[in-house]
């Protein structure tokens, strides 16, 4: 432990550290921790996600103290938070927009991992833990959206919980079990509140595992090559603490702009109508961060069976559910689908383009998901779904064999020490602008 404070303090610290080496640990993992010297701003989003998680937990705790998890009181208690509770409006808008920003940050973090091959050996478990965090986040966000008990809360929950009825044989029992009744009602709202409260702490635990796995081999970097020695790394503090702090400042400016000037931009006006079990809104849309998955769910509108026999193996509904969950499972399997030894897309001329097609496809799917399931949209969703699955199941395995990567630099520090700085900087200029 750095002991530049007064000696009594450092004495106490030493006494504790001898018995519980927590200070040594912190020093090791957050101070000295050797980090590749060439990380770009795309590497800010991991720590940013951690900070947003803290913002969500703190704002959520305070909101939970004012919220009433019953169908009779939920909607009104949220309005009370907005009108009567001191700073309640701000806390709720922080929490509400924080969810959206959490997903923005995490999605960028995931795309960064896909572009620079951060999922490749030896970081497979790190990557899978990340997908686990994403799935937990999706569950938490979904249940959180139910709590205000507006029209979108009720009907979004109805649609999503009904997904489980697609499971053969036991599906309907599972749905009844999830609901604790025959429709979404008070028991459902109560348990969703409990899980919405619980899951963030599970996320914290998985984040710790994620960091543990990260610190085993350290961060990947824009070149995607391993550090050859100490000259390739710099201590985390102050170099990356200051870089992360700067990124955090930029993030907070944008976040505050949303909270204070367009807090409802990413929400849906129908959720300010109290839940009504007898009227479905004309157009149910989930929150924007679920839209690509929602589009894939709706893309399968046909039964899958043996042609010309009329034998149905997978009903359309189950097909949609399999495709939706499959899209997440494929993400987790990326380390085994992409066997190319080159991590960074900078040195993979074909993969680079495929990556951007995939990224655009995700945005395209999101757009399809927001559109009504009529006319051309189901077909376009199907097209987008095929591109999504094609990226993982065809492009990744094929490119592993077929693509001829560009020559890799000898080391991370080589271009820097040669004085050019051209390789790390120039080749990816469009990427560096965060």
């Amino acid at each position, binding site marked *: 432990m750095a002991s530049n404070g007064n000696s009594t303090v450092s004495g106490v610290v030493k006494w504790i550290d001898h018995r519980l080496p927590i200070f040594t640990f912190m020093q090791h993992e957050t101070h000295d921790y050797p980090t590749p010297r060439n990380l770009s701003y795309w590497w800010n989003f991991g720590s940013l996600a951690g900070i947003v998680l803290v913002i969500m937990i703190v704002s959520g705790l305070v909101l939970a103290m004012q919220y009433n998890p019953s169908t009779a009181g939920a909607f009104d208690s949220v309005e009370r938070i907005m009108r009567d509770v001191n700073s309640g409006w701000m806390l709720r808008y922080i929490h509400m927009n924080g969810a959206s920003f959490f997903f923005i940050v995490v999605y960028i973090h995931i795309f960064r991992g896909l572009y620079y091959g951060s999922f490749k050996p030896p970081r497979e478990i790190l990557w899978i833990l990340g997908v686990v965090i994403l799935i937990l986040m999706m569950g938490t966000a979904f249940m959180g959206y139910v709590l205000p008990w507006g029209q979108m809360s009720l*009907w979004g929950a*109805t*649609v*999503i*919980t*009904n*997904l489980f*009825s697609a499971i053969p044989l036991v599906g309907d029992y599972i749905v*009844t*079990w*999830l*609901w*604790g*009744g*025959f*429709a979404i*009602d008070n*028991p459902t709202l109560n*348990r969703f509140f409990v899980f919405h409260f619980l899951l963030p702490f599970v996320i914290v635990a998985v984040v710790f595992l994620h960091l543990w796995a990260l610190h085993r081999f350290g961060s990947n970097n824009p070149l995607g090559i391993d550090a050859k020695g100490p000259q390739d790394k710099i201590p985390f503090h102050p170099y990356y603490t200051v870089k992360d702090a700067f990124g955090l400042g930029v993030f907070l400016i944008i976040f505050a702009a949303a909270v204070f000037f367009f807090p409802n931009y990413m929400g849906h006006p129908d959720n300010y109508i109290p839940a009504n*079990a*007898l*009227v*479905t809104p*004309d*157009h*149910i849309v989930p929150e924007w961060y679920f839209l690509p998955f929602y589009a894939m769910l*709706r893309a*399968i*509108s046909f*039964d899958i069976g043996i042609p010309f026999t009329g034998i149905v193996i997978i*009903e*359309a*509904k189950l097909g*949609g559910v399999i495709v939706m969950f499959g899209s997440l499972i494929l993400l987790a399997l990326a380390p085994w689908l992409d066997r190319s030894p080159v991590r960074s897309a900078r040195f993979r001329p074909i993969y680079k383009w495929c990556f951007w097609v995939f990224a655009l496809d995700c945005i395209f799917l999101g757009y399809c998901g927001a559109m*009504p*399931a*009529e006319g051309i949209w*189901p077909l376009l969703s199907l097209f987008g779904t095929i591109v999504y699955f094609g990226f993982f199941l065809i492009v990744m395995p094929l490119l592993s064999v077929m693509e001829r990567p560009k020559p890799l630099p000898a080391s991370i520090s080589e271009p820097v020490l040669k004085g050019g700085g051209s390789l790390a900087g120039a080749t990816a200029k469009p990427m560096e602008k965060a």
Partner: protein
Amino acid sequence: MSDAVKGEAGDGEEHGGSRRDFLYLTAGAMGGIGALAVAWPFFNALNPAQDALALATIEVDLEPVEVGQSITVQWRGKPVFIRHRDRAEIEAARDIDWETLPDPQSDSARLVEPPPPEQTAAVAAVPDADFLVVIGVCTHLGCIPLGQKPGSDKGDYGGWFCPCHGSHYDTSGRIRKGPAPRNLAVPEYSYLTPTRIQIG
């Protein structure tokens, strides 16, 4: 664990080894059963409680429902659609080859016959099974289909249309187009009189 395995592999007749295995397995199994037995009440606590299970039955008077009119009643927290179909709607439901539908069911299989007309005077109000009674919950993902109010979208087959994911139901509540796998469910109901039904 490794001791037990070794004992078994080393000598089958050695009673010490196999006895230890036996104890290990039975103790483990009992522990497992005990854990499951304790887990069950926790799992089951999430199932519908007795008050939710207490089956509500409702009675609906069909007499005021005019031909072409639809009403919605709430039963077990779900909407039940009751439509007094006109001739054209009944013919549309019957003049098709129902065996080719996604969820093959004939129109008459989806109706409960009212008691024979001679019993009461209100005969004329109800000719043969004009009333269609279905649970108004889309079998895809549980939205409430449109088509109950005059002027609302009844879909391509004149029945109901679910706006969530574009399922079209016909005038018998059968799925004709879209992602829903099954026809709108017919609740358990019976005619108390020719113009009065009990649902549940």
